């Protein structure tokens, strides 16, 4: 199994890099849309507002630079660690918010769809979480030693 996976890891890393770049570009085009989404999660406090604004500014660019790092190599492992930590936190936030929406609307969690601010518009929550788990695994492939 290990011998089968090892040759695939560089490719998994590159694919993950491309996915991050795609997500980041969608957010960078309209940064205030992403800022609204971050605010909507209610995780970061509204004050001091530079904290929320700073996160709204930095996250898409970190995602973009991280995507390029995964694709091209420089700082690949460090970018992989940061991106996997961010993705883990974001996926937990999506899960938390989708459970809240399901509870508020009294509907099945599997039917919950909302704009998660992930750069992909309105998504079905469980599908987004499943795709994030796959992306997380691919990002972990970037942590391998050279």
């Amino acid at each position, binding site marked *: 199994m290990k011998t089968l996976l090892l040759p695939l890891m560089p490719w998994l890393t590159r694919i993950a890099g491309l996915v991050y770049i795609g997500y980041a570009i969608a957010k960078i085009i309209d940064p*205030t849309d992403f800022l609204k989404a971050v605010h909507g999660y209610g995780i970061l406090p509204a004050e001091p*507002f530079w904290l929320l604004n700073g996160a709204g500014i930095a996250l898409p*660019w970190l995602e973009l630079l991280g995507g390029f790092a995964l694709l091209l190599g420089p700082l690949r492992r460090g970018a992989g660690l940061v991106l996997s930590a961010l993705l883990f936190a974001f996926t937990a936030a999506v899960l938390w918010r989708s459970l809240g929406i399901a509870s508020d609307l009294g509907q099945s969690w599997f039917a919950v769809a909302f704009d998660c601010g992930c750069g992909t518009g309105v998504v079905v929550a469980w599908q987004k979480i499943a795709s994030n788990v796959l992306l997380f695994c691919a990002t972990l492939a970037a942590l391998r030693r050279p």
Partner: protein
Amino acid sequence: MKRPPSLLGQATVFLIVGFAFSMIANAIHPSGVELSRNYFQQAAPEHGFTVIDTEELAEWLEFLSQDEGGILLLDARGPDSFALGHIPGAILVDHYHQQDYIPAILPALQRAAMVIVYCNGGDCEDSLFLAHDLVYEYGLMPEVLHVYEGGLDAWQAATLETSLENGGQR
């Protein structure tokens, strides 16, 4: 032989470079986020602005078409949402880039007897944030501001009902 940087060392360098890069890139981005601006004023839920419903808005819209600037209807959403559909007679004032819109209409806003703001409805609070800024940053009287809380969602739902009653045309 030089040792490669550790995983944490690389991550730290990546974060420092990334944050610096993001601030520079945001500064030159035409729609960049202002670090020092409070986009989410605590206007809701006890905002104190007069709230109007769909029926009242429809009545005021009849005046809007005849009135010469006494009533202004502002759409607080973004230009893409506005282009996809808005309430007839509405003026686009994207709350998040209000500096691009308000100076041009500020004299009209200051003359208006009634300014109605709306966004999508539901969880959307952009209309409240805009109303708050119009009062506290642009000096409009709070009594002038009216918030159509149902927003475009309620407007479209009501219009659909009316249209169906009139023979199925939107």
